[in-house]
């Protein structure tokens, strides 16, 4: 709809919108995160929900203890290789539409434990991540910024066409293979559909 006509109509007391923006507006203001923390980043996530930073202003105060009722997974902390299958399984159990914020250095890349033997080098090896936040741990403002970025992403989603989100596309994959405990490492070490190693430049 023409923007000029829209504002002209508004002056006359007629409010117009599109179904798409109404639908997305409703969605983006009630994103319920999964109540689940893995390490010190979880403490910052808790602080974000409390009175001082107040994530409730964005409609995300309801942390659900069940993946069936959650829309957003905040991977807050170090994902060990022993924990990674459970994280993927929780993600699979969430109903569409579902989003992931990888919070902190460990969740995005392994962080200070990157060269170790027991920490997964980023949860984006197994599940698609919508927003990455660096920091060790990121401040609550950073999590709020990530949350606002996610809201922007949701509001930009088209309901039809090839670019439509996963939950409106019956053919799209919504479950991701859970890695198995191997003899030396997780098997497979990453999901090739969602992640590939950055090119070696030197």
């Amino acid at each position: 709809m023409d923007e000029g006509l829209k504002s002209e109509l508004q002056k006359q007391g007629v409010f117009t919108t599109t179904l798409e923006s109404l639908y997305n507006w409703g969605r983006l203001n009630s994103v319920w995160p999964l109540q689940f923390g893995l390490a010190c980043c979880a403490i910052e996530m808790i602080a974000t929900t409390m009175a001082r930073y107040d994530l409730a202003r964005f409609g995300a105060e309801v942390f659900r203890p069940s993946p069936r009722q959650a829309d957003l997974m905040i991977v807050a902390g170090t994902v060990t290789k022993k924990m990674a299958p459970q994280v993927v399984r929780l993600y699979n159990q969430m109903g569409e539409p579902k989003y992931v914020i990888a919070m902190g250095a460990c969740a995005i890349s392994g962080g200070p434990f990157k060269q170790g033997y027991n920490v997964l080098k980023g949860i984006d090896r197994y599940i698609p991540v919508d927003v990455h936040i660096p920091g060790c741990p990121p401040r609550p403002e950073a999590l709020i910024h990530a949350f606002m970025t996610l809201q922007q992403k949701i509001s930009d989603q088209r309901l039809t066409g090839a670019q439509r989100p996963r939950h409106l596309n019956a053919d799209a994959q919504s479950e991701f293979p859970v890695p198995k405990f191997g003899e030396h490492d997780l098997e497979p070490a990453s999901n090739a559909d969602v992640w590939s190693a950055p090119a070696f430049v030197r």
Partner: protein
Amino acid sequence: METLEQIKARIEVAIPGASATIIPNDSPSAQRSLLVDCGHGLAVAKFLRDDAELKLDYCSNATGVDWPEAELTEKFKVKQVVDGVEKEVEELKKTLRPGYLEAVYHLYSMAKKHGPVIIRLRTENRTDKNHLPSLTPVWRGCEFQEREIFDLYGIVFDGHPDLRRILMWDGFKDFPMRRDYVEPDDYEYEPTPHDDVLLKSKQHGEQESKV
């Protein structure tokens, strides 16, 4: 508290057949430890806990050490007659030290407010003779720490109530804290590689170019 020499002497008197060796420490802390033969490990531990003088009732820490096979070189001076003149000549002596694994226990006394006394138990080798007596029956707090040593170093503790891996999963085959552990090649781009990471990135790069 008694000196380590006194403790060693009393152990050898109290437990027939037991032998203890004092391991020197050249580092600034100079914290010496007592190597106990593993056949009498449990008896020595009970003695240290129950002895009226020592009363080492608290094991604050148990950890492992991996000593791979190594060639040791020792320098020593030999007097030699060179061209009719007596001179001091340095000679190198090379010895092959077999590999072994160690469990180290740091003991304190809550009752007597003293410590630490550090005891070590040593396995015969790193492959098949890797059994040690568990000290969990003596100090209950060792349970998880011995599980961790089992997990990361592969020392099997006989007499442990629940010996399973604790950090890695049950199907895991390697021992990650051993010096010869080869980690899976999941190297990723590093903006500023240095030292070991640089080496790893080069090796990875070579493999990539082969493929």
